[in-house]
């Protein structure tokens, strides 16, 4: 998945003098800086001068970033809202003339045909076949190694998962998508999670199966919705409002559970609003290129982040607050590139964290236990010592699905799920689960380089950051490498809302994958300029 060919898309050509520069993104920074996407090395061109942006319908818009050097199109100064360009329009940056030439459909088709097709180096069908075999083995273990309750529900759960995998595969093939890496990883982790549920709470198998289906539907809907960055961009405020509303609801209505008020009961279902807020946070945090250079936007985001983290702290969910904060650091660095901002944020958070530790005794206790779990095996170190013991008892290959005992310990299938994996599946599979999330992150960073829009690139990076931060806190907390925070392992920990959120995060990663046939969440090049596809259905998808 990481080795597959990865050439840029080309959308237009920008000429200045005799040079022709290919325009490889939908959002391009023009300036004299080395980091500019289209570098124009002239004295009168600012380091960061203008942003050239393509819309879904194929139109190009030029934005003036600072307005000091001045940007003109056909002799008219570009206003704050930007100027729509036509192919061949004369652009002037300062005194430097440029010309934008859009690309003919034939030429674009030809270029597109030269790009490697996603999923060519490793056959997605073969990987999926391996995954299916792995999941069937899991099921077999569940049905044989331990005296199982509800074997029918367990078998049904795995059957639905495997069917879903193949349905997803063929559906993607049908619409000409062959990039299946992200889905495969997500399905792998979801399968491990299903196995954990079968071990620890077979009575919940049916619920978990339904949740997997729901999560997959949400993944599809969000992915299709993200096809239009403009649509996403426009609804950011609504998403922010929704997030804050959920948090407020959480603070004022839910009861305390295990020290944290992070659960909300609605009609017999309990769910964690903070998990959905994660999705909204990524959705809100990402931004398109021309907006990035407006300080006001970043400020708004910082305020939004502070409210989110503060609300989570108020709820008592410090683990999730920390995950948000790490994500905030990454997004704000991606957006501003300013180490100073990040430093400021870190010192601010350090102070807030210190305050939290001194005010909340149970957090201080967890810090005190950190690194000393074996000194208090019946008290503060109870969970981690059991987790370590079970993890080591599994060896490299594990005791088999359903063959472990750690699931009898409270919260083993959520907060200590990594140890359950180690015990039942063995160290190798458990490390593979960690590796799977890391692979996602490498993949996301790599696709981000070719993302059409800054929005999708930032969103993909933020999504994997969220997943990685969560995994790090979960795994290292369990293993006593960090204080125990009680956050979930993406996909694997039992918990419905968490699973929904994780699958939706996958949509962000798919949204930045511009390989040929890479992603359903990206409109294919061939469809973009055909008259039939022009003016993409607005407002479709998952509102």
């Amino acid at each position, binding site marked *: 998945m990481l080795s597959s060919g990865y050439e840029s898309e080309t959308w237009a050509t920008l000429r200045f003098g005799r040079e022709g520069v290919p325009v490889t*993104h939908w*959002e*391009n*920074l023009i300036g004299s800086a080395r*980091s*500019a*996407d289209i570098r124009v090395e002239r004295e009168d061109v600012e380091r960061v001068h203008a942003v050239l942006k393509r819309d879904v319908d194929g139109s190009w818009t030029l934005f003036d970033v600072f307005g000091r050097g001045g940007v003109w199109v056909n002799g008219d100064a570009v206003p704050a809202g930007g100027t729509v360009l036509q192919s061949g329009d004369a652009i002037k940056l300062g005194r430097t003339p440029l010309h934008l030439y859009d690309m003919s459909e034939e030429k674009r088709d030809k270029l597109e045909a030269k790009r490697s097709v996603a999923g060519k180096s490793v056959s997605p069908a073969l990987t999926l076949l391996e995954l299916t075999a792995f999941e069937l083995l899991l099921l077999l273990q569940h049905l044989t190694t*331990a*005296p199982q309750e509800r074997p029918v529900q367990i078998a049904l759960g795995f059957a639905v998962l495997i069917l879903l995998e193949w349905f997803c595969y063929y559906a993607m093939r049908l619409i000409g998508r062959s990039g299946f890496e992200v889905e495969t990883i997500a399905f792998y982790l979801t399968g491990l999670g299903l196995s954990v549920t079968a071990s620890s709470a077979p009575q919940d198998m049916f619920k978990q199966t339904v949740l997997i289906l729901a999560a997959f539907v949400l993944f599809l809907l969000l992915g299709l919705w993200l096809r239009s960055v403009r649509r996403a961009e426009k609804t950011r405020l609504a998403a922010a409002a929704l997030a804050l509303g959920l948090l407020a609801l959480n603070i004022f209505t839910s009861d305390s559970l295990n020290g944290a008020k992070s659960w909300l009961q609605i009609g017999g279902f309990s769910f964690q609003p903070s998990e959905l807020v994660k999705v909204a946070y990524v959705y809100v945090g990402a931004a398109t*290129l021309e907006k*990035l250079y407006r300080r006001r936007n970043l400020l708004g985001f910082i305020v939004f982040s502070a409210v989110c983290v503060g609300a989570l702290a108020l709820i008592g969910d410090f683990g999730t607050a920390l995950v948000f904060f790490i994500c905030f650091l*990454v997004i704000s*660095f*991606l*957006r501003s*590139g300013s180490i100073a901002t990040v430093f400021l944020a870190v010192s601010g958070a350090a102070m807030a964290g210190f305050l939290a530790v001194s005010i909340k005794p149970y957090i201080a206790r967890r810090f005190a236990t950190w690194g000393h779990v074996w000194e208090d*095996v019946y008290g503060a170190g109870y969970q981690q*010592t*059991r987790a*370590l*013991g079970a*993890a*080591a*008892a599994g*060896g*490299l*290959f*594990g*005791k088999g699905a359903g*063959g*472990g*005992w750690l699931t*009898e310990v409270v919260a083993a299938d959520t907060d200590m799920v990594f140890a359950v994996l180690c*015990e039942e599946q*063995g*160290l190798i599979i458990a*490390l593979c689960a*960690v590796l799977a999330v*890391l692979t996602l*992150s*490498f993949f*996301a*960073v790599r696709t*981000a*380089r070719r*993302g059409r829009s*800054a929005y999708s*690139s*930032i969103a993909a*990076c933020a999504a994997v*950051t969220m997943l*990685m*931060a969560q*995994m*790090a806190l979960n*795994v*290292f907390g369990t*293993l006593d*490498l*960090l204080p125990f925070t009680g956050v979930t392992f993406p996909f694997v920990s039992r918990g419905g809302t968490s699973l929904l959120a994780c699958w939706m995060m996958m949509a962000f990663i798919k949204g930045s994958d511009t390989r040929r046939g890479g992603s359903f969440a990206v409109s294919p090049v061939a469809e973009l300029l055909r008259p039939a596809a022009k003016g993409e259905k607005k407002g479709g998808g998952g509102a």
Partner: protein
Amino acid sequence: MKKITTRALSVLLLALGIIFGMTLFVLRYVDEGRDWALYFAGANSGAGGELRDRNGELLASFDATRSAFSADGETRVACYHITGDYWDRSGTGALSAYWDRMQEYSLLSGTTKKEPRQFTLTVDASLCRTAYFAVGYNRRGAAMLMNYRTGEVLAMVSAPSVDPINGEVPVAESAFINRCLSATFAPGSVFKLVTAAAAIEDVPDLSSRSFLCEGEYTIGSVDIHCTGVHGWQSVEQAMANSCNCAFAQIAVAAGYNSLYRHVKDYGFLDGYELDGIPSVAGSYRTEFAGNPELAWSGIGQSTDLVCPFAMLRYVAAIANDGMLARPRLILTDEPAELTRLVEASTAKKLKEMMSYNVVTHYDPANNFPGISHLCAKTGTAETGDGSSHAWFTGFLDDPSHPYAFVVVIERGGGGLQAAGPVARRILQAAIARDGG
């Protein structure tokens, strides 16, 4: 875009951190995994284990998905303090103490069942049942039986006890304590065995001396009372009479230093391990506090406290010519590990005294029918609230039944009356087990 995509690499810092953390974990896993895996965290942890008595009778069996104790409720309760339970509530059971030895561990396959699976103890479950029910339902107490030639502990019971099969049922107060290993009691007259040893070695003319008992003995401003008026007695007669007046004089004659040294050398002040299961230390006044106090301590009162297991070690050594066979709970083919605890000549004299006790004072024909060569000492230790702990300890000086025993009935009354019958039933069962 370029700027953003370059900055995106910062995301990989987090990935790098995770890789670093996982590497650290794997290194620790390799280094400490064995200790983690073999830690007893409830009896279903690891691959499980199995405890059997010396005859192969099942005491407890566990694996990840199944747990079982003896099918017989009496055995479960009688052996509770030997096995421990799923939750390790007693803290001194063989399950938790030997957990790491009951299973294999390898880095490759984690914990696996050990072959053969049986982990065999020296105890005899039927003797334990006899001992437990001899102590009785309504009494608190401890009883141990040990082969003084081999060191094998054949029975170890403590009452009240617990049925390990059900963690929900409320248990009697202090039922989790193994009174054999984890408790100390005022020893009363059984302590005269120690005072006598000190006098034998450090009072040169002991055998030619006589000690007068007028029913009461005044030393300083302290009156020491006796159970009768014993008149002039030799040390043997004083032991048989369990005469407080005489032993007060003997303790003073031996002196504090001699007494303290003997108490210490005989191991009454140390905690030991019964094959890895710890016992608690007893106590004896650590500084000379005047002759009246010394006299009290010589008859097993004052601040004297003795762990039943320590007393068993002492009488077992006396039985074995002063050589202690290291007490064992795990059955092996290895020969007994012998160390000298008591001088041979001292042990010989003490053995004669203990035999003389039984013959002249304990009415063996009626109190101990079917038990020959019994050497013993009673103890009735005043607790200060009017009640007294009943002790009975000793051994059979018989190579075909080489058993040493100790019985303590907490606040049980007189030693011979309360603890004697318990010893009788255990010894009779042990002799019957040997085939007469």
